């Protein structure tokens, strides 16, 4: 049987009049798309290798290159789309699982785009953040229901309550888990240093901790996942908090796989595995087969770190997220991070990424409501994750009930990522999802730090503006305050689960 031709995804258009054959594209493309012919002194392209990352387009000094989506393909068909036919063809050829990177790109409803925010008019003056104080600080961790006070002999009030360790966030946004190995060290350094300067936290993922990152420990959430890679006493002691990763929004129910090609000498040291071997995290933790096992692990980690660090648990937003979260809270977690189905990944089977889990909007709304019904909401903080694109998404998540949000994809976009979804190949032209030294040096961590700080600063300013508009001067008063949200274009059932009224309904 003849091999079926699948159309290339992209076409590299080169303007011959503009191209000066400088070959910068040839040298820089990690996918070897561009080919130089010395005899004719011309550059040509192999469209089949192009992933659409636009790196060459950015570098070309004469703007000769344009990357276009290949429109010429099969007969249009709503059911049998080009990507479906391509995937089937690939699987017929290889017998393998289709891999992909980053978050689900299917056009499921993005509920953030169906939620509108409130603003004050006349009866309640809006507050101008340029003139008035506007507070974004949040504390993550377990809180008691009430404070205990005592009076000393002089009648002065003394504090009896000893709060459990909290994470202080100057802005309720953190950088979500991305492991060293899946991303480059320069990416990790950018995230770590930016967190340090912003007064927030980044998360190590399951990558262990490279020796150069220990100095950012106070702004680091260290993760313990099912592979236990890179976990040792000093690792536990270095972080500000410990996160047990049960699941990830992009691939709920399965483990992880870092291909051996990405396990360089330094990655192997950080992960404590042999160089060049695949790092495979099992689907479940092999010491957690039930909720009481999780409870034991939480307390074992607290014992190991003298109860000085909050221990959180990250779960994927799945159908049963509500009782699962309740169980996790009762198992003693200080925070629960819930990762929605649009959360990113370095590598996941495409069929899982695109078909498993639920959107974060429903998960956070339902979990917050249930924890309140059960009277245990104060005992645990909620962190929402999975596809936050703007300060608008962030503020809506907080109003639905999240104490803070995790962002990762947005942070990578700030560092250059163009969402080509090829992280798993290790050939990231932007120097982010790769360990190839030729590529990683393209990301200058000093510039990376500045860009991440700019992004968080911009979002903070926008959040302050929106808060002021609502007549609120502390993020505390928005957290869980759904009266400031209205739904648009949603069914009654969706509004009910989100716990919000429809646009047009007054308070």
């Amino acid at each position, binding site marked *: 049987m003849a091999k079926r031709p699948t159309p290339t995804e992209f076409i590299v258009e080169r303007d011959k009049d503009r191209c000066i054959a400088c070959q910068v594209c040839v040298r820089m493309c990690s996918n070897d798309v561009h080919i130089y012919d010395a005899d004719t002194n011309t550059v040509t392209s192999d469209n089949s290798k192009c992933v659409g990352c636009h790196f060459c387009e950015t570098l070309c000094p004469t703007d000769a290159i344009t990357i276009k989506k290949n429109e010429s393909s099969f007969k249009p068909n709503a059911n049998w789309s080009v990507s479906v036919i391509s995937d089937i063809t690939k699987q017929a050829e290889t017998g393998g699982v289709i891999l992909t990177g980053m978050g689900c790109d299917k056009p499921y409803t993005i509920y953030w785009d169906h939620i509108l925010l409130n603003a*004050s008019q*006349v*009866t*309640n*003056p809006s*507050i101008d953040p340029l003139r*008035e*104080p506007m*507070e974004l*600080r*949040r*504390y993550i961790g377990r*809180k*008691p229901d*009430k*404070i205990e*006070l005592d009076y000393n002999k002089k009648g002065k*009030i*003394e*504090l009896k*309550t000893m*709060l459990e360790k*909290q994470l202080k966030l100057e802005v309720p946004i953190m950088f979500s888990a991305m492991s060293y190995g899946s991303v480059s060290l320069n990416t990790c350094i950018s995230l770590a240093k930016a967190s340090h300067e912003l007064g927030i936290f980044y998360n190590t993922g399951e990558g262990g901790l490279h020796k150069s990152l220990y100095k950012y420990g106070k702004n680091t959430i260290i993760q313990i996942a099912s592979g236990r890679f890179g976990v040792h006493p000093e690792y536990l002691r270095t972080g500000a908090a410990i996160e047990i990763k049960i699941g990830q929004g992009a691939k709920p129910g399965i483990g992880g796989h870092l291909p051996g090609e990405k396990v360089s000498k330094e990655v192997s040291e950080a992960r404590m595995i042999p160089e060049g071997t695949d790092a495979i995290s099992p689907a479940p933790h092999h010491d957690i087969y039930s909720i009481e096992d999780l409870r034991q692990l939480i307390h074992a980690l607290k014992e190991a770190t003298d109860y000085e660090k909050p221990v959180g648990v990250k779960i994927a937003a799945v159908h049963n997220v509500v009782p699962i979260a309740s169980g996790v809270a009762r198992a003693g977690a200080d925070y629960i991070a819930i990762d929605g189905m649009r959360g990113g990944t370095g590598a996941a089977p495409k069929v899982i990424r695109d078909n498993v889990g639920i959107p974060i909007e429903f998960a956070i709304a339902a979990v917050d409501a249930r924890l*309140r019904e059960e*009277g245990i*909401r*104060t005992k645990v903080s909620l962190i929402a994750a999975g596809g936050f694109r703007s300060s608008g998404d962030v503020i809506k998540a907080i109003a639905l009930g999240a104490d803070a949000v995790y962002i990762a994809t947005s942070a990578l976009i700030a560092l250059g990522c163009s969402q080509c979804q090829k992280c798993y190949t290790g050939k990231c032209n932007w120097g982010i999802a790769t360990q190839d030294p030729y590529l990683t040096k393209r990301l200058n961590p000093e510039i990376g730090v500045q860009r991440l700080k700019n992004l968080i600063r911009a979002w903070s300013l926008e959040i302050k503006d929106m808060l002021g508009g*609502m*007549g*609120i*001067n*502390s993020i*505390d*008063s*928005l*957290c*869980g*305050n*759904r*009266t*400031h949200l209205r739904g648009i274009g949603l069914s009654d059932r969706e509004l009910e689960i989100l716990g919000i009224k429809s646009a047009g309904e*007054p*308070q």
Partner: protein
Amino acid sequence: MRHSEQEKLISGCSVAGIMNESGRKISGEAIIRSIAVMRERSNGLGGGFSAYGIYPKFKNYFAFHMMYDDKKAMADAEGYLKTNYRVVKSEEIPTIEDKSIKNRPLLWRYFVELKDKVKNLYYDLTEEDIVVNDVMKINAEIEGAFVTSSGKNMGIFKGIGYPEDIGRYYKLEEYRAYIWIAHGRFPTNSVGWWGGAHPFGLLNWSVVHNGEISSYGINKRYLENFGYRCSLFTDTEVILYLFDLLVRKHKLPFDIVCKIIDAPLWEEIDRNGDDEERELLKTLRIIYSSALINGPFSIIISDGNIMMGLNDRVKLRPLVSLKDGDTVYMATEECAIREVCKSKKEIYYSKSSEPIIGKLKN
């Protein structure tokens, strides 16, 4: 009326309070005159008063002031009351005939004590807890019945009209109290429900409020954790319940409660050089972040021992005060104080979040 209403009421207002710290009682004449000069700030759609020390003969009994839409509501509520309480006295609240006062509900008051069998049944609750639960239940579940106030030796008198007209309607000049609090209302919608006028009361608490609470949504959900049911379609009730929760249940002093609902800014806390105090303020904010009241407000609140005036964190609503001997005056505008206080002393303009407190001497 209330149950067909779907919206939260929004209003602007005037507030006034007079307290004699020695417990000397004065007639309601002064507070009526005081609130009347601020007529400009209300629009005839709500006025009310709370008075402390008015029922000395029944000071050991809970005084339930009730509003009923009709006889059926009255029968339902009385039936409910009588199962839990021994009613020592019940009577119609005296009023004058005034044709300008419209949509008058039935106004009734009861002096009651909890039956022993009820106390035994709820042995893990205090008497006050049981009363709170009953007030919540009547207000949320008995159609057409509303508990206006439920404290001891105090009562709330309110309705739809200008406050001075409501005061005369209830013949308040005939009552003598050591604390008087008044409210004139300017609601921005015209739904005429008498229960929606201020003050709002629960146990000995009464509160009047000028402003709007933008943190209402989370304050309400926070209070629901502790069994409070916000069913009055007003953001003011969350203030009342927060005070009840923090003072009565969490046993926190008034000044600490102010540091919770009107928390100092983080930058002020960070700057505080006293390590213990800084830690206390920080811990309060961390534990009680959902009890922070946000948005413009000035309130006057009392539990019968203390009368306190308080502003929001950036002072977006006016409140002034003056202390003359053992009498403390508070009001939205200076004119309301000058009208009833002969002192030439300067008016005190409190800062944002600064509580003004009148305290009963022993």
